[in-house]
């Protein structure tokens, strides 16, 4: 029965300002957006920069390894369960805060240019601000329920933003699909929370952790809890088998894809597992499941990515693939490596999406790479920054992606050689299709119509500025986590050490890999990436190969291009039967069985009345006769039959 006392500290104000500022921005834009016009974009961006400043303040003022709980109110309670509305500030949440507000504000800035001509300008920014608000709740909450509020809230904003151009029903379908797929995961999350409430009587991270530690290693309860939580994660972070919404989500405006479907929201799952790392460490079987799902997703999505021709779809599958890689890291208990990849991935994937947005902007809305080509000459800044992003994701040193990916691959090598092989293969595919994308888009000559060609122009400064900043980050972000072969201080790992300390005690520690072995691994990874880049160069630049039109694709390629028909399979296995069941229930069960029974009772009553009516002959003599006879019978019964 601990009802937390509301305390104040010097971190109180900045902490509550972080979510409040975007919320304020949302209200201003939602209520006065029409009047503000284009100023609304600047307001939305300004509040985010404010939130970023507050996050930086927290980063600088939180003592190393410390954590602080900021309670806003004792939100509600029932029985002996208290749910406070409180924020937890520790290195993990600060990392996420910096990523969300930092990249978020850059993307807001970018959107001012990107959405300039859209009539829903202020509506767009109100949604974006609302999204940031929920995302911040998600990472700041000190219990699972606050996290869940953010969790569902970002799902809602994702719904609103994917279906932003609501006149197009295909976009609305994609939005609806994203929301529903996420809700399937949310059910898992909720059940996981119920189990925690049931066994630990609390949803606070610290109480749950202590409770779980008491239950001990490999306890079935914890395995179930973590498995259910992982179902939630699969929905939100687009893992097999719930990943299909993410590629469809590309229907939204491109900044949305960059912010929600690459940098922040989809990494919520990784954050959640990292946050509950003790629980997951205590459930080795769940970790195995996560490892397998992550590896499979990484590979599966990478293969599909090979054959996509929509510039955003390629990036979407690449996101799914990279998320799979992060989950593989988590599955091996390498939480820091997973988080590290979240950070670097946020930079270069946001960069890639924004670059793709810039390309689409230049092309006047065209997204098919087969109609692009040679754009490097026209939009130089976009090309340069996009190339940096691509190199970073392909894992070429010294760009950011190299360090985080290498760390995961090294862990995988220690953990299981097969997993290492699969992940390396997936990284190789990544390098290939990303360079395929670059070559098809930027090199050789333009394949589109002349009309489009005249239209091509570099994007305004509001759009290129964020590109340049993100490109700079994509180059240097990796240095916060140098591998042991280069430096002994892994800044990122040290920063997060306190969060994962308890897991480290539980998990069997892996032995230090020899330096020579690690050099070999690095060499292999880089070689593989370079080989696939060379292969892509040979195919798309030397031979000027252009992917065939959809109807000419045959055989295996067709299956891959159609994403292994997963959507169609889901449609046949789940959607259609439910629709059929719905009709069946209504027509057969409701109308034929239940209602018929009700009507049958009415009908029988009616018929009995109809039959008894005939006794009313109208002859008084008959009535009286009947009366006398009945009386005699009753008398006889009374006298002779003993009741």
């Amino acid at each position, binding site marked *: 029965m601990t009802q937390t006392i509301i305390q104040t500290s010097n971190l109180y104000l900045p902490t509550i300002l972080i979510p409040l500022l975007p919320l304020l921005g949302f209200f201003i834009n939602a209520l006065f957006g029409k009047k503000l016009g284009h100023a609304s974009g600047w307001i939305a961006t300004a509040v985010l920069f404010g939130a970023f400043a507050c996050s930086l303040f927290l980063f600088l003022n939180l003592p190393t390894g410390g954590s602080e709980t900021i309670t806003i109110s*004792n*939100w*509600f*309670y*029932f*029985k002996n*369960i208290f749910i406070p509305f409180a924020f937890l500030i520790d290195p993990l949440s600060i990392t996420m805060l910096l990523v969300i507000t930092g990249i978020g504000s850059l993307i807001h800035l970018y959107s001012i240019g990107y959405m300039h001509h859209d009539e829903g300008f202020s509506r767009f920014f109100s949604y974006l601000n609302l999204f940031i608000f929920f995302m911040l709740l998600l990472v700041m909450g000190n219990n699972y*329920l606050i996290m*869940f*509020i953010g969790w*569902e*809230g970002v799902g*809602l904003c994702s*719904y609103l933003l994917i*279906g932003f151009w*609501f*006149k*197009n*029903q295909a976009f*609305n*379908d994609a939005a*609806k699909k994203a*929301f*529903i797929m996420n*809700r*399937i995961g*949310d*059910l898992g999350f*909720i*059940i996981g929370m*119920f*189990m925690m*409430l*049931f066994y630990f009587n609390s949803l606070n991270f610290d109480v749950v952790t202590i409770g779980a530690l008491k239950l001990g290693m490999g306890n079935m309860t914890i395995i179930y809890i973590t498995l259910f939580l992982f179902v939630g994660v699969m929905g939100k972070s687009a893992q097999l088998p719930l990943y299909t919404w993410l590629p469809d989500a590309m229907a939204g405006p491109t900044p949305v894809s960059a912010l929600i479907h690459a940098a922040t929201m989809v990494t919520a799952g990784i954050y959640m597992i990292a946050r509950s790392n003790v629980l997951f460490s205590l459930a080795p079987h769940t970790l195995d499941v996560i490892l397998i799902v992550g590896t499979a997703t990484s590979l599966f999505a990478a293969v599909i990515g090979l054959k996509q021709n929509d510039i955003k779809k390629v990036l979407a599958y690449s996101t799914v693939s990279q998320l799979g890689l992060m989950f593989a890291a988590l599955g091996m208990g390498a939480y820091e490596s997973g988080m590290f990849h979240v950070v670097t991935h946020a930079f270069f994937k946001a960069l890639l999406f924004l670059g793709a947005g810039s390309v689409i902007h230049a092309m006047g809305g065209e997204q098919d790479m087969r109609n692009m080509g040679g754009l490097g000459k026209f939009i130089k800044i976009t090309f340069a920054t996009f190339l940096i992003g691509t190199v970073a994701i392909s894992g070429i040193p010294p760009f950011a992606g190299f360090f985080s990916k290498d760390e995961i691959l090294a862990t995988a090598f220690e953990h299981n050689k097969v997993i290492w092989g699969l992940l390396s293969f997936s990284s190789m595919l990544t390098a290939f299709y990303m360079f395929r994308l670059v070559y098809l888009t930027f090199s050789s000559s333009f394949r589109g119509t002349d009309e489009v060609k005249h239209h091509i122009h570099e994007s305004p400064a509001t759009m290129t500025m964020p590109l340049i900043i993100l490109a700079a980050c994509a180059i240097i972000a990796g240095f916060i986590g140098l591998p042991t072969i280069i430096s002994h201080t892994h800044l990122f790992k040290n920063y997060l050490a306190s969060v994962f300390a308890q897991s480290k005690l539980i998990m069997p520690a892996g032995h230090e890999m020899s330096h020579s072995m690690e050099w070999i691994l690095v060499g292999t990874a880089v070689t593989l990436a370079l080989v696939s880049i060379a292969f892509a160069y040979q195919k798309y630049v030397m031979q000027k190969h252009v992917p065939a039109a959809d109807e000419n694709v045959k055989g295996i390629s067709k299956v891959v291009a159609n994403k292994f028909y997963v959507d169609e399979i889901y449609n046949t296995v789940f959607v259609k039967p*439910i*629709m059929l*069941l*719905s*009709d069946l*229930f*209504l027509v057969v*069960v*409701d109308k034929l069985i*239940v*209602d018929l*029974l*009700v009507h049958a009772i*009415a009908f029988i009553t009616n018929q009995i009345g109809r039959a008894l009516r005939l006794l009313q002959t109208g002859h008084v003599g008959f009535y009286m006769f009947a009366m006398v006879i009945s009386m005699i019978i009753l008398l006889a019964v009374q006298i002779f039959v003993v009741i």
Partner: protein
Amino acid sequence: MLTLILLLIPLIASILVLFLKGESVKWFSFFATIVQLIFTFYVYSVFQNKEAAKSLLAINIEWISSPKINFNIALDGMSLLMVFLSNLLMPLIVLAGFNRTQERSHIFYSLVLLMHFALIGVFVSFDGFLYYIFWELALIPIYFISLNWGGVNRSTVTLKFFIYTLAGSLLMLFGFLFLYWNTNLHSLSWFDLTVNHICSCKQGFIFWMFFIAYAIKIPLIPFHTWQPDTYSTAPTQGTMLLSGIMLKMGLYSLLRWLLPIIPNGVAEYTPIAIALCVIGVVYASVIAIMQTDIKKLFAYSSIAHVGLIAAGIFALNMQGIQGGLVQMLAHGINVVGVFYCADIIINRTGNSNINSLGGIRLLAPRFATYFIIIVLGSVALPLTNSFIGEFMLLFGIFEYNSWAAIMAGLTIILGAVYMLRMYQKVMLGDLNENVTVFEDLKWNEELVLATIAILIFVFGIFPKPILELVEPIATEIFKISFVK
């Protein structure tokens, strides 16, 4: 005394309104309901002051000595919550009709207010007989409302509704008589019945008498077939009354007249009751997915939602009972909201088929915003009013049986499916050829929807006062009805 005033305001208003004509009818009804609402807040403030509460709120006078029937009205947290819900919704329901023209509107509003009187009566009476009188009285105005102001096929549908619910009530009356003669106190006072339980051998029998009556009213599967037709045929204000408040009579009665009075019977048959409720949740949700009539879609969604509430109540634990009460309030507000939105659409386009609607958001952005808020409220998104309730209900069911909770939890997914599908077809996309003109909201419509939207957020963000209001009575009911 205060309770009596609460009861009398609508009754007097319903008589007075008969003497008015024209526009003044609506204004007077609105005024009366607002007075009632303000008075409710006053009663709430008195109620918070526990010492003063007992003497001011309860009335217990002998009405008939043999059989022993007392005029016993009082207020506890649960009653107050339901009274609050009714009084909150009533002004909205009256206001909803401001831009509609009705024939003989003075009779219509008199019936609405009479209904209000009966509903308050149900929620405040603590004598079984008195309660039964109000319970049946509530049926009469709504019968005439749907019979005279309803849509197509109204006489058949209304007759079915009337006889169906009356048949249920008859079983309940029989149950009460049985209780009266088989308890040694020979009293139907709630306070006596909760202390002096009838022999547990007879409780199973009484359980079914009461359960069927309430199952019809709520309605639970398979006693629900009157409901979709009635909801779509009744005039919108009637549907709002039915779905927003009258349906809560059944749920409230489960808590008031079933659990604490025959705990052993309930404990014995809980598995069947929960199974029915949970099946109902999934069943109605699945049906709602393919519904094309917007009002019927909402009717089936309502069946699913109340099924969940009933399941949580039958789980017989604190969070189930408390969550059920919170959710009753939330559902009342949301369901009135969705039906009002449906009414606005049908009223403007003359069309209730979602396949021949579309693109309304282009023409009426403000309406679209309110509508999506209400839709999100009814799919129980966090920070909306139904989230906490649904969370606690599902947790209650989970504690009873985890599989049942997973089944019932499907409502989280299916609810999103049918609600978003409906919203997409009706509001989004390009304009349908049937929808050429769609005026955005009138002042009274905006006032109603804005109030509902605000309430959705207020109760979603600040659930604590409601939880605290019902906590004592929920604990009491839990203690009485908990059988080891």
